[in-house]
């Protein structure tokens, strides 16, 4: 019974949320053991508590973004990154409100902002807050500020370490609550664990990746300005993945450079000796994919992702909904199902702009011979003699193709954010159980 309970995705997800709250709040409540003399007033103590909670929340962000497989497997990396963004913002507001309350309750303390004359503990607080502000501004307005992805990732790591490190220095410098040695050690340990996580993801993981290199075997063009990048493992067995998962690719440079990009595998999960990725030429890196020659060295970090049919072995069948390059993980699902001789029914609803831009069109046609697969192409700009579906994947269209017994299928959607929202809403309106709907964002940045 206990085992069954712990296999429920909802129970596991709830456990992680409780753990998140526990680790945010516990370091604060520990400060109530042998507390300093009280009586400084409610609002001043409230402000102090906000500062400590903000700091603990910031430190926890390192765990959220460390690609910990066990956490990631409960939610999916896109949801975790969104949770990271939201909770970081909450931490940011708490850290900002912390001094504002202080200035309001004790107006004299505003002199602490006089940087040249302020004590070091106040200077550390100001520097930490500036690092946090820079962190938030460069993340929310990265595209408007025209900061390329790789320098942004590097600056994001440095600024986050600075914000937490300087914030902890401020708390220890003030010394009111961290005056006792063991309390300072406890909080320093939290900061060290956060630091270790960033060292792990930036140094240890890349080192592990260098021990399992891959070589580019082929770069071939597909319809829709998409390139298939095929990799072969060198000196090892490659890696096992579940169809629909993705990996971070580093191409032609050392993995320590942190210039890695997430792409879904499009090949069969049954073959670890040749991995294929479908990559659409839309950005700086992806537009250069076609220029990489066979023999180029590559490194992979993965596999990641919960967008896979392997988690739902008991499903009676699947409805797969793809928009444009969102077909990549779905192609992997279909190819793997064909290789496994899966006899369950599959429906593919595939939206594209034109008939000629349908990536993997011929390969999908072939799959209909090997699988119980019904393909519904939806075109926004159909040819004149087109008799199939046109426009967008909306409620009416889905109602025509999904089974009457909605809960007998699992629904996998990978498309642009706009189409995903539309499909998610439509499936909800069509009474598809929310636990049967699975979404994959293909833009994590």
């Amino acid at each position: 019974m206990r085992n069954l309970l712990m296999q429920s995705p909802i129970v596991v997800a709830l456990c992680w949320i409780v753990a998140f709250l526990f680790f945010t709040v516990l370091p604060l409540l520990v400060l109530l053991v042998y507390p300093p003399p009280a009586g400084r007033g409610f609002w001043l103590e409230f402000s102090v508590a906000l500062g400590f909670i903000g700091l603990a929340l910031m430190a926890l962000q390192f765990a959220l973004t460390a690609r910990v497989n066990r956490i990631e497997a409960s939610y999916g990396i896109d949801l975790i990154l969104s949770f990271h963004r939201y909770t970081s913002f909450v931490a940011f507001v708490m850290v900002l409100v912390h001094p504002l309350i202080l200035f309001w309750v004790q107006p004299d303390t505003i002199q602490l902002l006089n940087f040249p004359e302020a004590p070091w503990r106040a200077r550390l607080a100001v520097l930490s807050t500036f690092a946090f502000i820079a962190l938030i501004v460069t993340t929310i307005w990265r595209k408007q500020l025209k900061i390329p992805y790789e320098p942004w990732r590097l600056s994001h790591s440095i600024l986050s370490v600075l914000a937490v490190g300087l914030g902890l220095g401020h708390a220890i410098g003030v010394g009111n609550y961290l005056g006792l040695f063991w309390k300072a050690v406890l909080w320093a340990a939290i900061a060290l664990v956060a630091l270790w996580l960033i060292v792990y993801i930036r140094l240890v993981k890349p080192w592990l990746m260098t021990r399992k290199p891959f070589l580019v075997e082929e770069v071939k063009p597909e319809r829709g300005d998409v390139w298939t990048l095929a990799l072969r493992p060198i000196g090892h067995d490659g890696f096992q993945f579940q169809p629909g998962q993705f990996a971070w690719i580093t191409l032609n440079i050392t993995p320590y450079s942190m210039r890695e990009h997430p792409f879904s595998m499009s090949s069969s999960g049954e073959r670890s000796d040749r991995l294929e990725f479908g990559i659409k030429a839309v950005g700086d890196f992806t537009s250069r994919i076609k220029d990489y020659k066979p023999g180029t060295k590559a490194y992979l970090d993965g596999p990641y992702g919960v967008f896979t049919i392997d988690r739902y072995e008991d499903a009676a069948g699947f409805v797969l909904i793809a928009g444009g390059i969102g077909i990549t993980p779905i192609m992997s699902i279909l190819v793997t199902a064909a290789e496994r001789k899966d006899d369950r029914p599959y429906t593919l609803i595939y939206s594209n702009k034109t008939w000629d831009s349908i990536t993997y069109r011929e390969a999908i046609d072939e799959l209909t011979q090997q699988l119980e697969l019904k393909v519904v192409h939806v075109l926004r700009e159909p040819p004149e003699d087109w008799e199939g579906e046109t426009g967008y994947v909306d409620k009416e269209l889905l109602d025509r193709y999904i089974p009457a017994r909605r809960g007998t299928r699992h629904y996998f959607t990978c498309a642009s954010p706009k189409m995903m929202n539309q499909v998610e809403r439509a499936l909800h309106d069509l009474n598809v159980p929310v636990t049967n709907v699975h979404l994959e964002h293909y833009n994590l940045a």
Partner: protein
Amino acid sequence: MRYSIMLQLVGFLTLILLGTAAFFAWMQNRPPLEQNRSQIEGQTEWLKT
């Protein structure tokens, strides 16, 4: 939709964190134990007479 659910979850977690901060501040500002005791004794003095 799941993002809206998550936004609500983060809102809920934020409320819990604010509540914890308020609890922390209250714990640090509650009247000392002796003061509480003398207050209670003062209030119950009439019972003895």
